[in-house]
């Protein structure tokens, strides 16, 4: 197997690949990148950790067909350092890969390409073309509340649903770690029909987010055989979905409230950040006290001292004090982009709802639910 290729596109493909290749895996071949010719003028660059797979098709001049695998990180670093615009890669005896550019020559130890795990075939997937900015926004708004506990399989991912309603398709992402929940709905014109929803694991979502950041204005998304596929230009990412039942989240979103605070978003966010500077160790406990027109944010930490800030807000209910993990409120406020926010409360042990005070026109919404702390 031998081909000649432009350096820049190959480097881009290798960059994605080395991010996925799993150097700590017990299977040595997972640390390698697969290079396999595809017809007379293409090569596929692929890496996988068995759950997440990235493949990039790059134009090249195929001299003889075949494939090889070598260490992804090292090949990336070597190609990056090569002089000139073009290079050649050739398989030699004993699975060695020979890389040549001008007068530079490397021979790298490789493993047979037939041992490389089979790649999910995205040719059978029916793709939907959607706006990447919308997907990116939805991921950002729900990513932080995914459980980081990989043993809690059903919470270690984001629920994705979409009604596939043509130009009026409505997509939804929900995540929860058991203490708080975030839910984001957006119009996703041309979105696929995904119902019932699927659970995209946290680690895979990180890769999707990375791919979306570098993508064009539109990407192709598809769901097939327990995988989600994302395709943009020549790069395709596939992520194995979590086969688990997401909890019935609608039940825990409070529908009514006894108390409503409308507060300026920036002032509230800044105050929470300021006061939590003195909050206790790693659990960020703060207290919110409210009476007519005022919201008081307090923290009391025996090791450090106390902090207090008063905010003028719109509030007409009865006095109440409630404790929260400030981090949970800050995470959600950070993703709300309207000047005013609504904090809807019931009792001091009941879930609190945080959402933009005025939604943008058209369907779509964002909200966060946070459980209080007993301080």
């Amino acid at each position: 197997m031998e081909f000649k290729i432009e350096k820049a596109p190959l480097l881009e493909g290798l960059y994605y690949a080395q991010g996925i290749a799993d150097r700590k895996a017990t299977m040595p071949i997972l640390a390698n990148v697969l290079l396999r010719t595809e017809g007379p003028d293409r090569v596929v660059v692929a890496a996988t950790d068995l759950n997440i797979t990235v493949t990039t098709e790059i134009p090249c001049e195929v001299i003889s067909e075949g494939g090889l695998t070598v260490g992804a990180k090292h090949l990336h670093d070597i190609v990056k350092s090569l002089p000139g615009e073009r290079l050649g890669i050739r398989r030699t005896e004993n699975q060695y890969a020979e890389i040549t550019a001008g007068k530079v020559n490397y021979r790298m130890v490789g493993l047979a390409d037939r041992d490389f795990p089979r790649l999910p075939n995205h040719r059978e997937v029916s793709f939907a073309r959607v706006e990447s900015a919308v997907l990116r926004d939805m991921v950002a708004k729900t990513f932080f509340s995914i459980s980081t506990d990989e043993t809690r399989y059903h919470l270690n991912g984001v629920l994705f649903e979409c009604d596939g309603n043509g130009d009026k398709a409505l997509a939804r992402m929900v995540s929860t770690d058991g203490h708080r929940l975030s839910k984001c709905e957006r119009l996703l014109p041309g979105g696929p029909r995904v119902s019932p929803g699927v659970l995209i694991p946290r680690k895979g979502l990180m890769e999707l987010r990375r791919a979306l950041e570098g993508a064009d204005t539109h990407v192709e998304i598809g769901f097939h055989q327990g995988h989600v596929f994302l395709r943009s230009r020549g790069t395709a990412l596939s992520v194995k979905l979590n086969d688990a039942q997401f909890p019935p989240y609608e039940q825990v979103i409070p529908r009514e409230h006894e108390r409503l605070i409308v507060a300026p978003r920036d002032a509230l966010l800044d105050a929470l950040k300021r006061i939590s500077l003195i909050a206790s160790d790693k659990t960020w406990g703060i207290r919110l006290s409210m009476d007519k027109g005022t919201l008081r944010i307090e923290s009391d930490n025996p090791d450090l001292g106390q902090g207090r800030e008063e905010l003028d807000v719109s509030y007409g209910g009865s006095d109440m004090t409630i404790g929260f993990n400030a981090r949970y409120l800050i995470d959600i406020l950070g993703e709300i982009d309207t000047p005013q926010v609504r904090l809807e409360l019931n009792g001091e042990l009941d879930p609190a709802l945080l959402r933009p005070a005025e939604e943008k026109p058209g369907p779509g919404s964002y909200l966060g639910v946070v459980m209080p702390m007993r301080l």
Partner: protein
Amino acid sequence: MPSQSRPRIAVLPPELANQIAAGEVVERPASVVKELCENSIDAGARRIEVEIDRGGLGLIRVTDDGCGMTEEEAQLSLLRHATSKLHRIEDLLSLHSLGFRGEALPSIAAVSRFRLVTRTALDEGAVCLEVEGGRPCGPPRPASAPVGTQVEVRDLFYNVPARLKFMKGQATEIAHAAEAVLRLALAYPEVHLRLRSGTREVLDLPPHPDRMERAQAALRTRLREHTTLYAAAGEQDGIRVEAQLGAPSEATATPRNVFLLVNGRFVRDRSLLHAVVTGYGEQLPEGRYPLCVLHVTLPPGEVDVNVHPQKLEVRFQRPHEVYAAVRHTIGRTALAAPWILPQGPARVYHLGAAARAGEPVPSPYGEPRSGHGAQVSAPQIHPGVEHQLSPVVMEPDRRCPQPMLRFQVLSSEQSEPAPPRRFFSAMNYLGQFQRTYLVCEHEHDLVLIDQHAAHERLLFERLRAARADGSAPLRSQRLLLPVQLELEPAQAALVQEETETLARLGFELVPFGGRSFVLQAVPDVAAFGRGARTYQDPANLLQRVLDELSEHGRSETVQARIERVLATVACHSVVRAGDVLDEPKARALLSAMDEVDFVPHCPHGRPVLVRLSLAEIERRFGRT
């Protein structure tokens, strides 16, 4: 119905019954060694010689100088349930002997070629009895032997081929036999015990004046870094606890070096083991076990020893009190951390020498005790004064009557706080090495202190003190998705009894009918931390707390979790290796270390300081 005849119920012939019974008591050669030595100790022997051959399968011979038996008694001793140690069932409650069932000798005789030679002080000559596979080979015949008893067991299991097949290699069986002798040796320091295998001497423990010296001598080969053990003693609710502790650096991955002795009897007990480990606290890295000999003494009526065929398990009437007594006694010594003090050939400790009955109080500057290996004399329990330990005095080199370092091992009666120590601030600071270690001179030793570990421990102690101040319930985080749990009946009952305790720990549980509960809130620290040993799953955390509550009547998991959080906080907010510390900063750190209950390990279990003695340095320079 098939025509086969119905199985008939019949009484087993006595030989077979004996063989079956023997299977319970005599598991392997080491069990024979244990049973015979226990008999010797019950007979008041001061010297016991054990010889074994082919790992005990060829020969086991136990010779003692105990009270011996008359001919009539010797014959009776081979009958099942014949014993001199128990006459009425009530005697079980006031049992002071190791044996009581009258099973050992007939069981052993049933599965071997057995010979018993015994003589009392009143008899002119000895009597000899021989039994083969449970059948006497003729009447007793006269023999000549000194006062005492000798039992010879040859060809063990020759008539139980099934058991013989399960025997391990000779080396293993010898090791088991040695372990059996060692366990008895730890409990009975006044008895001279010897074990020989073929011509090789495996163990020779001459009489020792006390348990500490016996433990020191018997476990010398198991001590790796420190050459000494440390004493702990106390009494609580009529439960006397005495222990010889190894430094935390001697910890092993299995509890093989933990010897639990209840009223002189070696036992296996998970709860006692847990108490020992908890006593050491976080000085012991997680999942490690210390080297420790624990003696628990309590009225015989409060322990049921008759629950296990080999008496390896016991039941306590007041298990929680026993647990607490052990944990507190060990905890007190571990907190004082005697292992931080200088040790090694250049140093001599006197531990409680003043309490030695009838002896004048030696001057702290008196002649150091000479001796090799064991340089610690154990705390003596003065017969009149219940467990009053005198202060532990570390004696500095005599040429230099310089600052005397005193600290106390408090017995449970003494509850006043230890006097403020000046240990670290008394050191002469020399400089920083590799921007990581503080080099100090202390008396005649060179002391290296890991600046990161020391600072980390300091901050950890402060955080812990602040957290422990408030007796308010712990903070708890309510769950968005309450977890429904189906508990086992015992656990469900426990939850109902301990609702308040659980609430104080931060768990909110609401009954949901039957054995179902809904978990609505968890301690705030539950969400913090990742990794194999943390439990983010709320149900998992609760399960662990419940297990501990049911087993020990208390739970340390939440406290441990808080400490782990604090340890991480501490770890990230202190000086690191590689940070330059100028002299004022280094001195400030040293004196701050004296202000807290300083434990010489960082919260993750690494040591804070390393000490090189002058003698060690001189030895390396060839000056001695």
